[in-house]
């Protein structure tokens, strides 16, 4: 080969290599489908961050997690046949810092807090009218307060981040409970100042919601750590009353005609709702949905003449009413069923046959009844064998109740689901309702020595619950209240608010959790100890904190 030939070949070769290198791929990454945090400085990004602050509310109370942590291990409910979280009811050693519910609660609410912090931080720079920014920061402070409030009641002293996280953090400190409450109260006050009386969109935070929250915060702070009964006086009771009175007096709100109207799924957003976690029937916007319809439901579908259908719901049989609540096994029950309509309005005790293939046959081989007739009935009292034999359908007296078959709380049943096993429900979860505000206001007044103001409030709720002609009979007197005291108030709250994801905290703030579990919850009474007034910090968090976090005592 000659030199020119070599050159002729070398040149294009060099060109190729150099060209290849020069025209090389760009290794810079540019996300297209995804988006990074610079988005928050734009108006639409800012609004997107605001929207996502609300989501952690959806992943707690309306799911098994939030209900398990508030319904279980109380006087109202004990564990049914199924489910993996019975230790929240039995307070056994399985209730420890490894439990995913405790980790996820911590994680999700802090995620919401970080998002709220991001909103508050971004408001300084985002190009929006000041009025709009102030409104959104008000929403952020309301939600941040709500999430801190839930965390501090659950875990005690907690980290208190008030600015967005920007880098890896390896250590932390638990701020004292008092300091956390100060921040919550400040956030609530800011929210009350910033928010309108009625939000432009239903479901967003507004002033009454913030007032309700602040009222409950004061009432709870006054309750201390849950070990004191009776409670010492506190200026917080008057402060709580002030906020709750504003809610109760707000002309936007009023009690519905009948107690059960609150649970009519066609009647959402009614005048008794102060603030509700929102769901829809659109799978794109509803997320996991409200799943509480699953957990209170008895295993009716294993009964003769029955099969599972949409109207009767999907029976997870997690939460079983205690004998104390329903009144058997030596307990009188919390309702005076002769005049109080609430038990009948909130409990499903009749199942109508929907399965022709499974109807029991009589002696001559004919079905005992037809589809559309009663298949199962829970009369609330025990029948004799003769009485049972006299009816065609199956009778469950209280002593027949099992862990799988018991009266089913109907507050959450969702007949609008489109298939039998569909878990997401579209029912809004009313977190703040007027009847609860009235009862808390009454409690605040009573604590503050104003039984005269408390009794008319309690009677307002009780009268609405009366059976026809029994309105006056439902009334109580100042003497009744002063005699019954906090036990009466808690009983009344149970009568009105059974299963509504407040009970565990109600018992804790009144110093009655341990006493009432020991008295009324057969499964939990042997294990519950004072240390159970706080839930364990997630062990994962402790492990990651380089020793800067310590576990709550007892766990």
């Amino acid at each position, binding site marked *: 080969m000659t030199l020119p030939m070599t050159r002729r070949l070398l040149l294009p070769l060099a060109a190729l290599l150099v060209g290849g290198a020069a025209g090389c791929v760009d290794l*810079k990454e540019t996300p297209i489908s995804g988006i*990074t945090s610079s988005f928050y400085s734009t108006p639409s990004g800012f609004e997107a*961050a605001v929207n996502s602050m609300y989501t952690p509310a959806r992943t707690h109370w309306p799911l098994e997690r939030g209900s398990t942590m508030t319904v279980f291990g109380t006087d109202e409910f004990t564990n049914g046949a199924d489910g993996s979280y019975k230790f929240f009811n039995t307070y056994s050693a399985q209730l420890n810092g490894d439990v995913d519910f405790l980790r996820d609660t911590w994680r999700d609410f802090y995620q919401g807090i970080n998002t709220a*912090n*991001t909103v508050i931080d971004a408001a300084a720079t985002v190009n929006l009218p000041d009025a709009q920014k102030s409104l959104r920061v008000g929403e952020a402070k309301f939600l941040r307060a709500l999430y801190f409030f839930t965390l501090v009641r659950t875990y005690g002293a907690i980290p208190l981040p008030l600015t967005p996280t920007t880098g890896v953090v390896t250590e932390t400190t638990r701020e004292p409970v008092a300091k956390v409450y100060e921040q919550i109260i400040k956030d609530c006050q800011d929210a009350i100042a910033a928010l309108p009386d009625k939000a432009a969109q239903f479901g967003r935070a507004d002033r009454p919601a913030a007032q309700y929250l602040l009222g409950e915060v004061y009432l709870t702070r006054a309750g201390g750590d849950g070990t004191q009964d009776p409670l010492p006086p506190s200026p917080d009771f008057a402060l709580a009353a002030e906020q709750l009175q504003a809610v109760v007096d707000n002309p936007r709100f009023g009690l519905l005609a009948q107690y059960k109207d609150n649970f009519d799924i066609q009647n959402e957003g009614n005048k008794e709702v102060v603030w509700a976690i929102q769901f829809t029937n659109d799978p794109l*916007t509803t997320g996991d949905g409200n799943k509480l319809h699953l957990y209170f439901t008895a295993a009716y*579908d294993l009964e003769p003449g029955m099969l599972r259908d949409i109207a009767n719901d999907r029976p997870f049989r997690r939460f079983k009413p205690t004998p104390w609540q329903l009144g058997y096994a030596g307990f009188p029950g919390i309702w005076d069923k002769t005049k109080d309509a609430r038990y009948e309005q909130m409990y499903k005790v009749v199942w109508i046959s929907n399965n022709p293939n499974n109807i029991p046959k009589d002696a001559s081989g004919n079905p005992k009844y037809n589809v559309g007739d009663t298949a199962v009935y829970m009369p609330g009292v025990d029948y004799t064998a003769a009485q049972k034999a006299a009816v065609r359908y199956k009778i469950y007296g209280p002593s027949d109740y099992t862990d799988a078959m018991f009266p089913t709380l109907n507050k959450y049943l969702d007949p609008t689901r489109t*298939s039998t096993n*569909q878990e997401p429900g579209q029912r809004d979860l009313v977190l703040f309702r007027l009847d609860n505000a009235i009862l808390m206001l009454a409690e605040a007044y009573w604590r503050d020595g104003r039984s005269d103001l408390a009794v008319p409030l309690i009677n307002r709720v009780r009268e609405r619950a009366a059976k026809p002609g029994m309105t006056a009979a439902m009334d109580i007197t100042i003497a009744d209240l002063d005699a019954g005291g906090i036990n009466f108030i808690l009983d009344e709250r149970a009568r009105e608010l059974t299963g509504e994801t407040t009970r565990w905290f109600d018992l804790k703030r009144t110093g009655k959790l341990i006493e009432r579990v020991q008295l009324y919850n057969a499964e939990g009474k042997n294990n519950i100890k004072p240390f159970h007034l706080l839930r364990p910090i997630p062990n994962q968090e402790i492990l990651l904190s380089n020793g800067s976090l310590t576990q709550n005592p007892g766990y």
Partner: protein
Amino acid sequence: MKRRLITVSLLSACALLLPATRASAQGTTGGITGVITGVESNQPIQGVRVTVLGTQLTVTSNPQGRYTIAGLAAGMYRLRASAIGYTPVIVDSVPVRAGQVANADIALRHQTVELEKVVVVGYGTLAKRDVTGAVGSVAAEQIKQIPTTNAIEAIKGRVAGVDITSTGYKPGDGVRVRVRGQRSLKASNDPLYVLDGIPMAGGIGDLNPGDIQSIEVLKDASATAIYGSRGANGVVLVTSKKGQAGAMRSTFDTYYGIQDITRRVEVFDAQGYADYKREAYRNPNSVAAGKQPIYTCGGVAGSPETCPEGDALTFYTEELNAMKNGTFTDWQDLISRRGSQVSNQVSVTGGNERNQYAVSGNLLKQIGVTQAQDYDRKQMRVNYEGQARDRIRVGGSVLLVRSLQRLSRGDGLYSEAIADTPLSVPYDSAGNLVFKPTPDAQRDNPLADANNWLNDNLRNRVFGTLFASVDLLPGLAYRANFGPDLTFERNGQFIGAQTQANQGAGNQAEIRNRRTFDYTLDNLLTYKRELGRIHKIDATLLYSIEKQTFEGDSTRGQNFVYESGIYENLGGAANVERIGSVISQWALQSYMARLNYTLLDKYLLTLTTRVDGSSRLAEGNKYATFPSVALGYRVLDENANQRFGPLNSLKLRGSYGTTGNTSVDPYQTQGGLTRTAYSYGGAPGFGYRPGSLPNPALSWEKTATVDVGLDFGLFDGRLTGTVDGYRANTKDLLMDRQLLLWTGYSSITQNVGATRNTGIEVALTGITLDGWHGIHWTNDVTFSKNKNEIVSLSNGQLADPGNGWWVGQPINNPNSNSDNHVWYDYKFDGIWQTADSAQARSFGRKPGEIRIVDANGDGKFNASDKVILGNTYPKWTGSFSSRLDYRGFDVSLQAITRQGFMVRNDLQRGNTLAGRYNGPAVNFWTPSNPSNEAPRPDKNTENPVFGDARGYEDGSFVKIRNITVGATIPPRLLTRVGAQSARIYFTAQDPWMFTNTSVLDPEGQTGNGVPIFRTLLIGGSFGF
């Protein structure tokens, strides 16, 4: 700047390698010429190096096989002709006279000796005797022998250190391949697959095994470092069949096989189920306080005979009817069937000296052993190579594949069949399918699922390669490769009303589309030169880019008015449940240099270095260098007839190098926002919350491997073998480091922690009989032992039970069903017996319930009693293959084994014994049957407490993988039908397994899914 420097150094490097131009000799000289042909093919061979021994003169044969040497002084000369893949030939005494050209034609014979095999080593080939790294090689014949849908399965048990396990037995199901263990906690542990030089994303499952010429597995760092950032998990090089010069030759390969399930879950039969359900209802735990237990008619505990009312309270009407009528159902039988697999392939190859081609087409269809499951693949391949000019060669290939995998409810069909009560019937008296055999709300007839549940995976793939090579100077060549790879996948799912998921109401459909476009562009410069018999140089320079774009979209709707539209009518949905699309891109840019140097044909040196830049890593950390060095010493060279006792060849090898891993998802360094949904009174409120924390420091995961090996031959090559020992340390693991949750983030991808793999591999081949009375008998054995362990975790932690990682234990992938596990659970300790009631009570348990070991001895059972029970990594694996040939008949056998690993029997864990569902028949505890195997059935316990502790078993097994008997028809019998060759064979694939486990398959099916099956097939291979 860095880029330019590298380019400059590349150019100067090649300038150094250019030989000085030599003036041709003048005067009274002569020459030698001749044509080199192959003995077997009688075709000219190009590229043969002809050396005039005793001089520096070397020439190469042209495409016509002709070589010409000029400028020789008159005299006698000795020539040596050598080419890769052929035995070198020395021609003595070629007389050259002045002014004349002597003729010396040479015939070369294909090399047959094992050590002389040519192996593909990535960006080139090498004679096996020159290889310094650890490379395993599998030939076409061995691949073809295993009738599998996935070509990679064919090398199972063929290469020491390569652990291949099935991940399921549904038609078209995949396999898991681990080369020398696994090293990554988060990044991929899959090897890199390369077809004809082009990386094949997502494995070689689309490839037809019949098109494969050879598969090489690169194991050590010296071999894999040329793939730099992609090489840490080993590299699988696939070489496809190419055309040969010569007459057109066509072959027809066909087989048809039947497939039958070899193991099934032994569930309670009708009687056993009835007894078990009665016991569940009889259990005092099932009885409400103050109530009479069932089967206590008149207050006296009784039996079903003395108290028939108990049965009425226990069983569904349907079950009572079944007991009365004796109509029972074996649901597993009902959804199983005889499967089949058929493959037909036509290949045409041919060409002349300048142009060669290969064309093939393949149709494969597998009818699964389970109702409603099958796999269908159609495939075509065209391969062309041609000599454009004397120095320029071009070629290309196109692979077209379309496959459809239909899975219905998948493994769930068996979940249903196992759980359904045998006391029921699938069809009513009119022969109609009964959707609900009993009223139980969770159960249905699995045949209804088979009919109304669709899960179809359609894949269309176009994979091309294109190359051009130029011989620049003697020994110096430039080659460009371009490889585009397009994959279109569509997953269509439809779940009708009459399915377990929907229980008679509602339906859902979803379509997911995935489009992947990947291309590779390589610029390669190679230089080969022998300097006398002292120095031999083989150098390679590479500049390469690879880029991938992935796009996906999906739509899911529910409540369609008519079901016949399946997933092809998404517009008919009453609600759109989900809609989405995504794009992600990554790119890799690489420079590589490799030098193979041989000194005195005895000392071997391989130096490689690769510089990779990855878009997936953070700015400033995108580039990394992966160097390696390997040394070889040919102690005994059989070519030189050296021997020491029975040893006639021996080569020592040692290598050290680093490789990397960037197999994290793109955009990890940037952080991102997570989309959320809310609604305000029905008005949508979509949002974005802070999702992941950016890590601007994300860098390479690196593995440093040291490998020491030796290759040896004994008894004149009758026994050859390879032994390798290695240790691979992986550091800066790409790992999701968990963050303090109160920060609002859960994890960040960081480089933390380290893992280590240490192992030994042995591969032996023995030619036991070589022509003894016409019998050829060869036996192969492989043995591999790998120890995998985590060396360190983030923050100096020793244990991370949250992630399931412990220092000193192997890598655990608790979130993947198909990957390796370390089992961390309660230790089963039998059943609480009546005599131990008091002790049981102190633990809060009762007789008949599961007893576990109180590991920390605190007298309580809680989470701190969990212990590490074992793991799924085998202590060792091995294989044995044997082949015997006698006068046109051949018999072969392959067996594989994995020993010393623990499987979790998910059948037992899921066996709730609540009297509601059927499950594996177990000897459960009753007051009169003090069993220590299974707890007492309890109607009110959905999951027996500590039920997870049951079912951990030793998974060791030996499988007879393949037995084949074949007969080659003598050519004289074929001429009348126009055929040139024919072979008929019978194969039994996976005929037997020997194991003590009770799972369906300790390798790939430890739960209640599609069972393992055997294939019996007959096939033929005909050449025309």
